[in-house]
């Protein structure tokens, strides 16, 4: 049953191949629109790193991962961990778009009593596997899940999305070493290589290059990809399932991205790392995304 571009089917009913019908580029923009509005409404949040990850998240949720919004705790689901937890808005947008939560709930972001915490909370939300926000921790948790899956012979893959600045945390390399040692080929680390961290460009603060060489030296199968080419991202992420041909190594996807991507005046402008748009900025940003999506696309978003 092929999925419609408007509301892609993500459940097990749709064979993975069937989902190639989804327009990931449009989906990514719809996630951006939801994230933008959510942050604007909340008055705070992190647009920059949410937007750079839009295609990655779209590819995961609407193409690569096996999951079923009607059964958030479905044991056979692929797992996703947003290690760069401050990009929560793009995750929440995907959860809403996929049907895990109501669109209206997005308005409660960062409010007292909301399930939509400033950073993802596993106790609060469906299809969230780890509480994050303190950078550096997600890949270890993902490796633990991948290990558990393998112990139980479960046909499950685990995806962790990391910031590039986050890769300065030593724990990331501890996890990398452990995962390679245990040949966790059901584990995928995606680095959102947007070249910025909070205080400025990564290469000016503590340089990460050669980043792919680092992952390789730590025993990972590395793929570099244009992080805004959603189809290419999907291809890089779609590692063989554990029961398929074994890569015998975990995969790292270094996705070259632009921070703030998709809104001209936010692109590469690190002030939008962690601030909400003003009302005027919101309108301009909205207009840009809407122009790309067309009115039909927006109505659904």
């Amino acid at each position, binding site marked *: 049953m092929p999925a419609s571009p408007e509301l892609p089917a993500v459940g097990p009913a749709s064979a993975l191949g069937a989902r190639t019908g989804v327009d990931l580029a449009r989906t990514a923009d719809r996630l951006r629109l939801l994230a933008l509005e959510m942050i604007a409404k909340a008055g705070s949040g992190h647009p920059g790193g949410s937007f750079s990850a839009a295609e990655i998240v779209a590819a995961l949720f609407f193409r690569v991962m096996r999951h079923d919004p009607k059964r958030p705790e479905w044991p056979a689901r692929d797992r996703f961990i947003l290690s760069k937890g401050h990009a929560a808005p793009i995750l929440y947008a995907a959860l809403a778009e996929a049907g895990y939560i109501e669109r209206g709930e997005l308005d409660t972001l960062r409010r007292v009593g909301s399930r939509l*915490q400033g*950073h993802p909370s596993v106790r609060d939300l469906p299809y969230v596997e780890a509480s994050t*926000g*303190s950078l550096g921790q997600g890949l270890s948790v993902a490796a633990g899940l991948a290990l558990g899956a393998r112990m139980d012979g479960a046909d499950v893959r685990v995806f962790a999305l990391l910031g590039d600045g986050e890769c300065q945390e030593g724990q990331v390399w501890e996890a990398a070493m452990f995962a390679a040692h245990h040949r966790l080929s059901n584990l995928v680390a995606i680095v959102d290589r947007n070249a910025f961290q909070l*205080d400025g460009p990564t290469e000016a603060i503590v340089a990460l290059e050669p980043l792919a060489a680092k992952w390789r030296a730590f025993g990972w199968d590395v793929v570099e990809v244009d992080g805004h080419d959603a189809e290419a991202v999907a291809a890089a992420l779609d590692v063989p399932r554990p029961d398929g041909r074994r890569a015998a190594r975990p995969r790292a996807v270094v996705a070259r991205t632009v921070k703030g991507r998709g809104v001209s005046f936010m692109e590469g402008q690190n002030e939008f790392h962690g601030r909400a748009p003003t009302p005027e900025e919101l309108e301009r940003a909205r207009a840009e995304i809407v122009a790309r999506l067309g009115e039909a696309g927006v109505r659904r978003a």
Partner: protein
Amino acid sequence: MSRPLGPATREAYGQELLALGRERPEIVVLDGDLSKSTMTKHFAEAFPERFFNAGIAEADMVGLAAGLARWGKLPFVSSFAAFLMSKAFDQMRISVAYAGLPVKFVGSHGGISLGEDGVSQMSVEDVALARALPGFAVFVPADAEETRRAVRAAADWPGPAFVRVGRPKAPVVYEGGCPFQPGRALRIREGRDVTLAANGLMLAAALDAADRLASEGVSARVLDLCSVKPLDEDEVVRAARETGAIVVAEEHLLAGGLGSAVAMAVAAEEPVPMAFVGLADTFAESGRPEELMQKYGLTAERIAAEARRLLRRRARA
């Protein structure tokens, strides 16, 4: 809160660090990719050659500071209090405290009043952790003026020190200067019936509580315990003796915080009924600072209510 708002204590830290940087060429500053939030950016702009961004690598940052201190520099190290204390505790323990090196840590966004970012960025255990580091001084200033004094005192303190500053604008407690000294409690309001001891944002709340109590005819003494460690045990014990009841308030878990330090000092010398305002064994959440303080009971009303409860109990006894 009814007091006028002044600058955030983190902003006062940023300014005072800049001033100290001008006076003392041996000061170097490290930050963990948060210089725009911790306000070390002021120092970084003025003295780029004495500022090092360690990136998102708090453990290494603390070790670097230890090495710089051993070299002869006077390092100030900043990040959010949550990441500073929680991610680099062992480095503080061995590379800094056991080595006896004068590294100064200033953790910003302490407490739950940082608001919307939520639990992962909130530090509600930093004071407990810092107290568990032998030789560390621990200061939790209440407003901008006291922060300036505390930061300077940290620079002068012979060993390592931790200072907690906060994100939101802080109610002004000290108008005409603040006589803060390490190891000294400041009795900022006289009172006979009960003592309200607090620091950080809870000090203004304690003053407000004292106002409320005064309107009910209760004379509440207010102690500023910015110097959590060393603690002014004499003044605390005097308060117990002279007022017979103590409420301690802090923007922190009850376990291992200011209240526990005061409770031990009082129990050892002059046991009196006490009440503790702080976070029980719980995480907070995202939200507006004032809403969170309200929801988690970190308010003047709560302090006043606890004081009344202690007084009623005394009346019954």
